[in-house]
């Protein structure tokens, strides 16, 4: 026992933190990411890799289930922190580390009402936990598909969705990617139709290779790393090719207002806002989008540099070195041949097509393929890198918010969200992640009613 305590204490020196960003929590997320960077604590990608779950923002009912599911999947020893304002992040991280090092008794995660489906799994799979008394009753319930699976906490589709209940689409289909039995002659087979371990079997459908393979129903989000907070995309996949996609929002509170468009809102309300402040905010937004995109593209060092510059841009005080550094990064990323080669021709949004479907300004600026979109961020970063400390008052007619001006009553992110599903269909999983990251809708701009988009 003494050895375990020693290991726990040594391991707590540098805990891995999973930042669960919920809608409205952008400022907290940014503060948390900055703190982690400065402390050198790794950001966990999945609950399985985390020691600390840091919930950035107040989870609305629509996303609370996902957060609970992620927490249930964090292996002990673990600590949880709920942070609602950027200033509290540092103290919360310290407290979490102290809790880890002390090896405090693990509190059990509350089972929320929507998780009854897990009981089925436990019934069928109880033996699997034999001998492992770790205080994680639902450990195998939901986090099994990383954060992706935690989407089910948001939409319990009991019975209504393709004969698959929400939570287990990931598991059931992930493993049983063989055939569905329906419609096959099996008179001479000795078998017992049932649902293995309480999980539904996959169903088949047409696919691009003419092989009618199984369809998997995979919810992506809302808590994936480098993923827009609150976005849920329900995928129907065959292999890793997406056949159908539906975008939804989870836990988006009514009109909290986006962190990224704050200077423009203040200016519209008549408060004094300098051009420099707005430029910094917009550049930080682009750097944040770029960092997430580069992370998804697997270019960790460039992503880390973009995050560091983003934190600098959000800081206060004059910063003569920031402009050149931003320009250098933009040039390095924009000119990378390998990155352009690997994203070329992906998720192409034709300007004409965009206009025909009633999207104007915002969609036009998001036109082209993935390469064109990240290069546009790089270009816009370079263009304004000289005026970070401009003290003249902001003129919204000259400087647009990061994701463009509202298109009538629709926020630019709503337009991006509506364009998403169509771009995803036919893409492979990796391409889909890149497409989402290259559009990077900010759901805080989107009011819940106008959120969803469908594609066929």
């Amino acid at each position, binding site marked *: 026992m003494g050895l375990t305590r020693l290991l726990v204490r040594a*391991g707590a020196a540098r805990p891995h933190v999973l930042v669960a960003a919920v809608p409205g929590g952008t400022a907290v997320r940014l503060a948390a990411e900055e703190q982690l*960077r400065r402390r050198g604590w790794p950001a966990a*990608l999945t609950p399985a890799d985390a020691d600390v779950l840091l919930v950035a923002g107040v989870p609305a009912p629509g996303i609370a289930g996902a957060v609970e599911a992620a927490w249930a999947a964090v292996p*002990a020893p673990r600590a949880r922190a709920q942070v609602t304002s950027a200033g509290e992040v540092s103290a919360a991280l310290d407290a979490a580390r102290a809790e880890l090092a002390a090896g405090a008794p693990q509190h059990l995660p509350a089972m929320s009402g929507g998780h009854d489906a897990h009981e089925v799994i436990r019934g069928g799979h109880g033996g*699997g936990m034999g001998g492992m008394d770790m205080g994680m009753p639902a*450990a195998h319930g939901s986090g099994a598909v990383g954060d992706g699976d935690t989407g089910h906490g948001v939409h319990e589709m009991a019975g209504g969705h393709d004969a698959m209940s929400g939570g287990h689409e990931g*598991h059931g289909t992930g493993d049983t990617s063989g055939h569905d039995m329906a419609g096959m002659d099996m008179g001479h087979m000795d078998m017992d139709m049932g649902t293995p371990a309480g999980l539904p079997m996959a169903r088949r459908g047409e696919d691009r290779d003419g092989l009618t393979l199984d369809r998997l129903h995979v919810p992506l989000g809302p808590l994936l790393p480098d993923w827009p907070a609150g976005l849920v995309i329900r995928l129907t996949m065959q292999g890793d090719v997406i056949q159908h996609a539906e975008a939804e929002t989870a836990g988006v509170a009514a009109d909290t207002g986006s962190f990224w468009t704050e200077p423009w809102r203040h200016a519209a309300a008549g408060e004094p806002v300098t051009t420099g402040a707005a430029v910094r905010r917009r550049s930080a937004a682009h750097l944040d989008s770029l960092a997430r995109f580069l992370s998804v593209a*697997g270019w960790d060092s460039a992503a880390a540099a973009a995050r560091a510059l983003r934190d600098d841009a959000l800081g206060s005080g004059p910063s003569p070195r920031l402009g050149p550094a931003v320009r250098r990064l933009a040039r390095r990323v924009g000119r990378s041949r390998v990155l352009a080669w690997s994203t070329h021709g992906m998720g192409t949004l034709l300007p004409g097509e965009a206009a025909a479907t009633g999207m104007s300004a915002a969609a036009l600026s998001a036109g082209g393929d993935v390469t064109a979109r990240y290069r546009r961020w790089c270009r816009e970063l370079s263009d304004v890198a000289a005026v970070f400390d401009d003290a003249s008052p902001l003129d919204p007619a000259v400087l647009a918010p990061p994701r463009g001006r509202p298109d009538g009553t629709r926020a630019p992110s709503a337009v991006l969200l509506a364009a998403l599903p169509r771009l995803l269909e036919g893409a492979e999983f990796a391409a889909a992640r890149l497409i989402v990251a290259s559009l990077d809708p900010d759901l805080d701009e989107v009011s819940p009613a106008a959120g969803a988009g469908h594609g066929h």
Partner: protein
Amino acid sequence: MVTSAPLWSVLVVPALLAGFATVAVAADGLLAARAAHRRVSPAVLAAPLAEVPRLLAAQRRVTPAADTLLWRLGLAAVPVAGVLAAVVIPFGQLTASRMSVGVVWFNAMEVLTWAGLWMAGWGPNAVLPLIGGYRFVAQGLAYELPLMFALISAAAGAQSLDVADIAGAQGHLWFAVWMPAAFAVYLAGVHAFSFLGPFGYPAGRDLAGGVAAEVSGPDRLMLEAGRWLLLTAGAGMAVPLFLGGGAGPLMPAWAWSAVKTLAVVLALVWGRRRLPVIRADRYAELAWVVLIPVAIAQALAVALVVLTTGGTP
């Protein structure tokens, strides 16, 4: 003359490999800190080592309807493959096991990761690891053949499959110098079979860690350590294959082996941060249409040189 060390030296191999891997991880942490604009201090170098107690103390992940047997088997196969591959690498004048077909053995052990990662992806019964496991198979189909031809080039240059003979055949000219294409393909292959850097596709961030997405505790330690052991084994093998083995002036052979291995390890660690991930869907065509012909041409050139001159050019 390289000789087989006594049997106990098989125990030294993992220790030596782990030592070099630790240096690699520390160097990687250093570069990561620099990329994140963080001050570099001794603590940064030691930080990756804190992962060991952290992971040893953490709980193991259990998922519903998992194939636990294959899952654990696959995770264990990764470090085991690294150590077994390293058994035939001569270090200075000694090698743990001098096999007459050392090059083929190295290749076979490195290929064990195919089975290992596929099982590690299949086991947890979850979507993201499953995609990760399949990604490694796709990547393997792309990188493996060019890598084999690179190994064949070195073996053909020395007219032997014995690693020590290959090192000895580079008396006055390193193979890296007159087989540059094979050397480059080999180094890319090392990144690929240790699924790090530009070939980190199976464990990509877009999959939230891919094959590692559901792995925690000691299992995760095995998987993470395994990748770095594989990288180190690949770097160690590059020394006798392409860089003249332990040959060098002034210092003893073991010191030259250590210096060269360290140099290759650091070059690989540095190189892994230079590029974004190269997805298998793009890389496969590049590998089959460009790299395999290049690697075959390299092997052919080596064969012609050996036929006409009877050795190095």
